[in-house]
Structures are given as C-alpha cells and as structure tokens.
C-alpha cells in the first residue's frame, strides 16, 4: 500500500525490453541499485516497471546490454502535473468555479419563514427586510441578533424568533404566543335553540324564566341575565335595581325529532362491465388536441372518469399545458329486487342517517319510535322515525338594549 503510493508519487514507467539478453539488462540494473518490480515476460519481450528517476539513468545500461527499450505505460504524480501544465485553462476554470461557488454561497437567496400561524408571512418578511435581511444580502453582514430582537420587540404576538442560515436559505423560525381568548363577559340571556318541554332548569346566575314542565319554543328566553343588587328584603312590593349579567345555567329539555326514509323494492343498478376505453386530450394554451378519441353513442351507458394532469414549467409560466385523460367505463343495467324486510331496514337506516346531523352528540336519546307507513304505490316502502331526546337547549344571546330597559317603578 505504502509502496504503491510512493510509486505513484515518484512516477512509474513501464518499459518493454526486447533484445537477445534481457536478463543481462536486469542484472545490470540490480548492480546499479535500480529498483525493479513487476517483471513479466511475454512473447514480445520483457516488461519491467521502474521509477521515473531511475528511468533517466538506464540509458548506458541499455547500450551495454544491447537491448531496445520502449515505454509502454507511465503513470503517477509527475505526469499528472505535466498534463495539468498543458491544460492551464482547465485549472483556471476549476479555481474560478470554486471562487464563484464560494461567493454565491455566501449570499442569502431565499428567506423561509416557518412556524407562524396567525401572523402573515408577508408582515414578517417586510419587517426583517426593514432590518436588513433581504435576499441578496451577504450572510456575514446580517445582524442576526439585532433582527431577532427587533422582530420580537415589534410583534408582541411573537414569543421567540430564531434566524439561522442553511446554505443559501435564511430560515426565520417563529414561535407565537398562545394568547388565551378573553372570556366573554358580556351580559347575555340563555335562549332556547329548539322547541321542547323543559325537564330540568338550574340557574347558576340570572333569573330562570321558565319552570320544569313548560313547553318552550325556539327563541324563548330560558334564563334572564339580570340580577338584583343587595339583599332581597321584600321582593313582592319593590323591585330592587336591576343589573345586567351574563346568565349561566343548565337547561335540559325533551326534544322530538321526526324523519322519513323510503326505499324502493325494485331498483335499477348500473354496474361496470369491465370494458373501458381511454381518451386523451392535450391542451396547450387555448388550443386543444384530441390525441385519442373515444366514440360514444348517445344511447350507450357509460361512466366517465376524467383526470387532469398539469405540467409545471416554471411557476410563472403562463402557457398552460394540460392533458385530460378520460376513462370511459361501459355500464350494464341491472334490476335488483329486494324483500320488504330489507327495504324497511334500508329506509330505516336512511331516516336515521338524516336525523344524525340534527341530534347533537351530547343528547341523551330517550326513545325511538319506528313506524311503517302504508303507501299507495306498491314499489315503495316508507318509514317514519320519531326520536325523543333529552338535551341542553340553552344558547347564549347577548342582551339587546331593548331587553335591558326596565326602569324601576316608583
């Protein structure tokens, strides 16, 4: 390994020795302390490797031994340098390339802003640009600490700012403060969102306006957001001064939902036969080219799946190149007949699914009532579903000025 390296550094010449007595040449070399290696004999002659410096001193030996030599191969560092000397422009180009690369890399080309949720990126971009971080700036000229401080100082929503350079990107990392939402302290009533019968009413603050067992309509006030200041001495005769507050409380009511679902006994189903055809349309700008046409008769039953592929040239390229690939599936009409029970089941589940969106998740279902309706058409099964739930129907509605006015009587 080390010997090979030293051979490479000093340069190696492989020569062919041809003549009557190549052995004599070898012996003379050995006598002269010339190191030889890799001796092989072939039909053409003897091949010998030697170092470049030794090569220049073998001329007398060759003369003496009456042999002819020919350089077959040469390799090593001295030859490499020679080669480079002949191709100066390449070396200059290489150095130039490294210089240019180094220069270009020391500038900021892109600014990435990550971590911002509420603050628009443009605002941050403008702010850091004001403070001296713009694309095209020299990396070493950017006062990173200063900008970080400035951003954190200017934008109160920012908890922490970090600027780091990764190659030609400047990454501005932003951590926003999580500002807790100010609690709504506005005075409000609790109002019914649905019709129902009150089963439970607990007013934590405010005055309850309905009793248990009352039937309420949507929009009725359930708990009033007023309170009477001071001790209630004698509330029957004198109304103490009122104060608007935010009502709080639990109002539960029985609510009824009703829904219909129907299902046909005999249905026609379209099924794919498996045969398909593909049509391709190429669009360049405003021009459209039909690359592959699919002949579809108007009375054919087909299903079409289209999917568009856009080609991005550059982001700001304004010629749209787009291909539309439509797959035409041949369809088969099939009549499917189902039993009455199955039809009932289907319509029931349809009715329930339509109800599902109406009933809130927190509602407690008390009872379900399913009723099969008699229909004049024989082909149709219709089911009516009644669901009774107990749920919270209260909703905050801020007290309007009109509501609030209640002058204390004299």
């Amino acid at each position, binding site marked *: 390994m080390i010997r090979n390296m030293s051979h490479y550094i000093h340069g190696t010449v492989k020569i062919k020795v041809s003549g009557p007595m*190549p*052995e004599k040449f*070898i*012996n003379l*070399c*050995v*006598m002269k*302390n010339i*190191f*030889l*290696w*890799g*001796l*092989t*004999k*072939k039909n053409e002659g*003897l091949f010998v490797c030697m170092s470049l410096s030794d090569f220049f001193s073998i001329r007398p030996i060759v003369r003496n031994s009456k042999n002819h030599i020919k350089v077959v191969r040469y390799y090593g560092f001295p030859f490499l340098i020679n080669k480079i000397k002949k191709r100066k422009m390449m070396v200059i180009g290489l150095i130039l390339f490294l210089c240019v690369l180094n220069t270009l890399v020391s500038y900021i080309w892109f600014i990435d802003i990550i971590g911002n949720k509420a603050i628009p990126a443009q605002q941050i971009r403008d702010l850091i640009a004001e403070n001296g971080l713009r694309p095209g700036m020299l990396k070493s000229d950017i006062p990173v600490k200063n900008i970080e401080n400035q951003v954190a100082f200017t934008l109160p929503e920012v908890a922490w700012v970090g600027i780091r350079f990764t190659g030609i990107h400047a990454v501005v990392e932003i951590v926003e403060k999580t500002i807790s939402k100010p609690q709504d302290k506005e005075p409000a009533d609790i109002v019914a969102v649905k019709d129902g019968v009150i089963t439970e009413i607990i007013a934590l603050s405010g005055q309850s306006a309905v009793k248990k067992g009352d039937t309420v309509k949507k929009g009725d006030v359930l708990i009033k957001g007023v309170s009477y200041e001071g001790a209630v001495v004698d509330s029957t005769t004198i109304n103490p001064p009122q104060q608007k507050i935010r009502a709080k409380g639990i109002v539960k009511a029985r609510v009824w939902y009703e829904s219909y679902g129907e299902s046909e006994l005999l249905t026609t189903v379209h099924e794919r036969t498996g045969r398909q055809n593909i049509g391709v349309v190429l669009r360049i700008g405003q021009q459209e080219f039909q690359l592959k046409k699919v002949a579809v008769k108007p009375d054919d039953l087909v299903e079409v799946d289209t999917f568009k592929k856009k080609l991005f040239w550059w982001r700001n390229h304004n010629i749209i190149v787009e291909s539309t690939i439509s797959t035409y599936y041949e369809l088969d009409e099939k009549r499917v007949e189902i039993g009455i029970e199955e039809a009932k089941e289907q319509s029931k589940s349809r009715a329930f699914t339509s109800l599902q969106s109406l009933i809130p998740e927190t509602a407690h279902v008390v009872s379900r009532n399913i009723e099969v309706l008699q229909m004049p058409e024989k082909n149709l099964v219709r089911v009516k579903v009644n669901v009774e739930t107990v749920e919270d129907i209260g909703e905050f509605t801020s007290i309007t000025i009109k509501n609030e006015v209640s002058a204390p009587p004299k």
Partner: protein
Amino acid sequence: MQYRRNRHLQRLAGILEIPQDIVLDLPRITMLGNKQLLLENHKGIIEYTPSLVRIKLDQGELIICGKDLTLGNLQVEQILVEGTVEEVKYDT
C-alpha cells in the same frame, strides 16, 4: 582450501550459535505456499522465462520451474518470484 575454511567457519558458527547463512554466505529462501518465493542473497539472474527462472548463487544456481512466473521485487539483496512454483532445484 575453500572447503576447509568452510568447515572451520561452520564449526565456529555452531559454537557461537550464529545463523549459518550469515557465516557461510548462503542464500535464504522463504516460500509462501507455492505462490511466492523470496530469495535473499543472490548473485543475479541467469535466465528468466514465465516457466523457468534460473538464479545465480554463490555456489551454483537455483532453478525454479512453474507457471506464469513473474519477478515481483528485484533488488541487489533479494528477488521475489511470484506465480505458481512447481519445482525448486539446486544445481551445483
């Protein structure tokens, strides 16, 4: 004369426990299987072909027969014969 001198030297080497190759100027052959043969203390090459190498020694010569023989490392002191060595023979 030469023979007697050698006898004396040999005895001396035996008494002093000195390796005989140093005292008697003998060649030292180290073989690595049949792949490599390192010969130290030689007097030059007489003949070299891929199947036969003849090396001159102090007394007589060493004949190495084999296949694809190459001389790996040629110096004043040593010769490295590489290839497949089949036969090593002294010819005095």
